[in-house]
């Protein structure tokens, strides 16, 4: 889309529709160029322009409103030339709703051994031609994302290992702030693509505070919390999220990158996060694992050989209304269609979990929902300590009911 065809309305409007009176959870209406999004939202990951094994039409049936794409992969294949010619990723993959793309920096640092970060950008060797040294600068990342054309795009950030401590963490935080300015400057499609800055600062609350203070001075329409979900302790994880959501403005959406386990989602919604993404639900499906409120089950397990119930009796997805656990047991990991079938269920599960939380917040009974959720997941026992601590910090006490 060019400036000429763009509408006057800002490319992002966010409105809080309901707030939990106990926790920091909120329901929002996020309006993006391609469609609206009900938050809190889980965004399935379609790395290479497809959610593995699922048709865009099936995602519409599941009422998925936003997908994530990976800039690093898409920049390599199909490449910017193809995407430019077709007019962006939405058209290329036939997806009429919203897309969010990452900056490509995280993949570069995590996938490539030879990546090196300098003030200019991320220096790396081409994975297809080792002798060829390339540089991904903040400007370059935005240029690629402008071609991909996602509704929300991410700034290039200075990624350090979550468990890193010392001056490198502080350096990364400051550099991330310098890079957001270069990204905003480079964005040629501010009228229809929203750059989210990324809050960095490791596990240090003081650094996170400084980072938020700087980022909120910029003209941005939403924020991401980065540098988590990378091997830090669960205590450090929730406390850092808690600090960030306390500091970030209420009138803008908050995206917690790379988080998608059901219990993390419930805790982080309570802490005030609005957007999530994770490859886990679809990746685990390909190994035969299905998600339920009572935990995940591996359908390969012998115990399902004669289990003629659907994966989840309460689920209305096409897999649960058509197939039994026993059938899926027989084809999981063997027939390629099993990846599609279990992925459909797992995406449906994630979307349903978010919908249930939104409904509970609307009805102002979110704390009850959270208690019920953990009672189902950990029957007769308390959830792990970090879950109890995190929820206690936002006013929900979890108890084990006396067995009568």
């Amino acid at each position, binding site marked *: 889309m060019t400036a000429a065809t763009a509408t006057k309305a800002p490319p992002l409007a966010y409105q809080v529709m309901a707030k939990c009176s106990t926790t920091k959870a909120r329901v929002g209406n996020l309006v993006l160029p391609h469609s609206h999004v009900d938050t809190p939202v889980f965004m399935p990951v379609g790395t290479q322009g497809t959610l593995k094994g699922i*048709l865009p039409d099936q995602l519409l049936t599941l009422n998925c409103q936003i997908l994530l794409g990976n800039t690093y992969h898409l920049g390599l294949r199909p490449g910017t030339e193809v995407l430019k010619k077709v007019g962006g990723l939405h058209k*290329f993959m036939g997806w009429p709703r919203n897309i969010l793309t990452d900056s490509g920096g995280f993949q570069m640092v995590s996938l490539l051994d030879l990546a090196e970060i300098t003030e200019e950008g991320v220096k790396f060797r081409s994975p297809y031609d080792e002798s060829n040294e390339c540089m991904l600068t903040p400007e370059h990342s935005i240029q690629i994302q402008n071609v991909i054309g996602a509704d929300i795009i991410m700034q290039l950030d200075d990624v350090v290992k979550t468990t890193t401590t010392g001056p490198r963490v502080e350096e990364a935080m400051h550099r991330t702030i310098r890079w957001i300015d270069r990204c905003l400057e480079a964005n040629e499609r501010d009228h229809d693509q929203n750059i989210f800055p990324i809050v960095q600062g490791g596990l240090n609350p003081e650094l996170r505070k400084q980072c938020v203070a700087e980022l909120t001075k910029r003209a941005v329409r939403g924020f991401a919390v980065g540098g988590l979900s990378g091997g830090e302790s669960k205590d450090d994880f929730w406390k850092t999220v808690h600090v960030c959501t306390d500091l970030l403005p209420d009138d803008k959406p908050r995206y917690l990158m790379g988080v998608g386990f059901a219990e993390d989602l419930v805790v982080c919604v309570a802490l005030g996060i609005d957007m999530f993404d994770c490859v886990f639900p679809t990746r685990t499906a390909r190994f035969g694992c299905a998600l339920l409120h009572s935990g995940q089950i591996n359908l390969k397990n012998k115990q399902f050989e004669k289990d003629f119930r659907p994966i989840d009796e309460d689920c209305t997805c096409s897999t649960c209304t058509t197939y039994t656990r*026993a059938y899926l047991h027989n084809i999981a990991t063997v027939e390629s269609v099993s990846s599609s079938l279990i992925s459909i269920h797992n995406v449906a599960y994630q979307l349903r979990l978010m919908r249930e939380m939104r409904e509970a917040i609307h009805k102002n009974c979110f704390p009850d929902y959270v208690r019920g959720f953990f009672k189902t997941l950990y029957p007769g026992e308390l959830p792990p300590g970090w879950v109890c601590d995190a929820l206690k910090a936002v006013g929900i006490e979890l108890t084990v009911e006396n067995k009568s």
Partner: protein
Amino acid sequence: MSRKIMNFVTEKVCQNSSAKSGKFTKDSSSFPTPLLLQTTKGGSIPHLAKEVYEYVTTDQPFLQISLSNTEQMRESLDAFEKGIAKFVGFPSSPTFLVMKSPTEISPSGFNEGGASPLFGRKGKELLTPEKYIKLVEVFQPDMYHSLPDSDTNIDSSKKRLRKSLIRNLDFFENSLEIHKTSERLSKSMFFAPIVGGFCKITRTECVKLMKPRFSDVDGFLIDGLHNNGAHASKLELSSLKEIVSHTIEELGEKEKPKVMVGAYSPLAVLEMIKLGVDVFDSSYVYIASKNFKALTFNFDLNTESKVNEFALDLSDPKYKEDFSPLLDNCTCLTCTKHTKAYINHLIVTKELLAPILLMIHNTKHYLNYFEAIRKSVQNDNIQEMITLLESQVAEQDIEDSFEGRNSESDQVEAKKRKLAS
């Protein structure tokens, strides 16, 4: 035979050829012939969730189930008790159970003693007629055939053909006896596999020896022509016509359905229909899809002799920036919503969606092809259709283009299984 759930009637025989139309009926559904069975892997139409198959057509598929890739489900099915169709999520679909998967090369050998080898997921299992029928009972198919020895092809020696003939006859007689006493299979149609490779004498003898039991047989499988996989699409057409024509003449039994299992090419299918064969399966569609081919041949007699490229190889880099649909005017989901460039990208990145999108288009194309064939049989102009197909096959050697990494991996797979057994 009225106690069967499934029935077959011949409705029309052409004047200009032996092509005929008819229909299978089950409950209130009917399935017109010439009929395309949907081949399955592990009970599913390859790559397609039921939800996705319903994007292709709302007509119930008539499923072909292969024991070689479903035998491991027997414990589940035994406990389930409601048969394979319901188990695989197509409760109202009829099923035709075959022993070997037509989509993969079947391992050869182990044709000794009173048993026939079933090559399953965990290796080889020797099945006597008793064991075989017991296994079939668990599946509760609407149609199945007696335990065969059809391990022959165009290159088989006289000795092998002879052995196949004798063993197949023995298995047939024993299977039929057990079938007649089986309560659970009393409603299933029982098919006789006619074997004999490409040898007319053996075919004649096979029919002659089985004929006394034909009154108990509901249909015929013209078997023993190939060892499955893409190979079936490459059979030399004149030899195939000659042997099938001879077999059908010897058979007589004009009222009973005749089935050919395997990835026969679209043109071969037409020639076989012209000779009086009623039922085929979609393994050609699956093999084309997994070799990244999109079927684009024209079968519309009403367009003024439009000659299309027979099939497109979507892995070809020339499609990288081709934002057109696989086939102009095709109404399938793939063609209405996606482009060649996108499918090429999905192939290059080895994404699961590539074979899904190709299966959607190819399945729709082939179902439409069969619809056109049935019309052509009604209009008694099957030869015109053959001429149209011939003009396009000449454009491209489809058989050769099937020689891909997958047919190779089929062989590797078959070898591995042989080693494992």
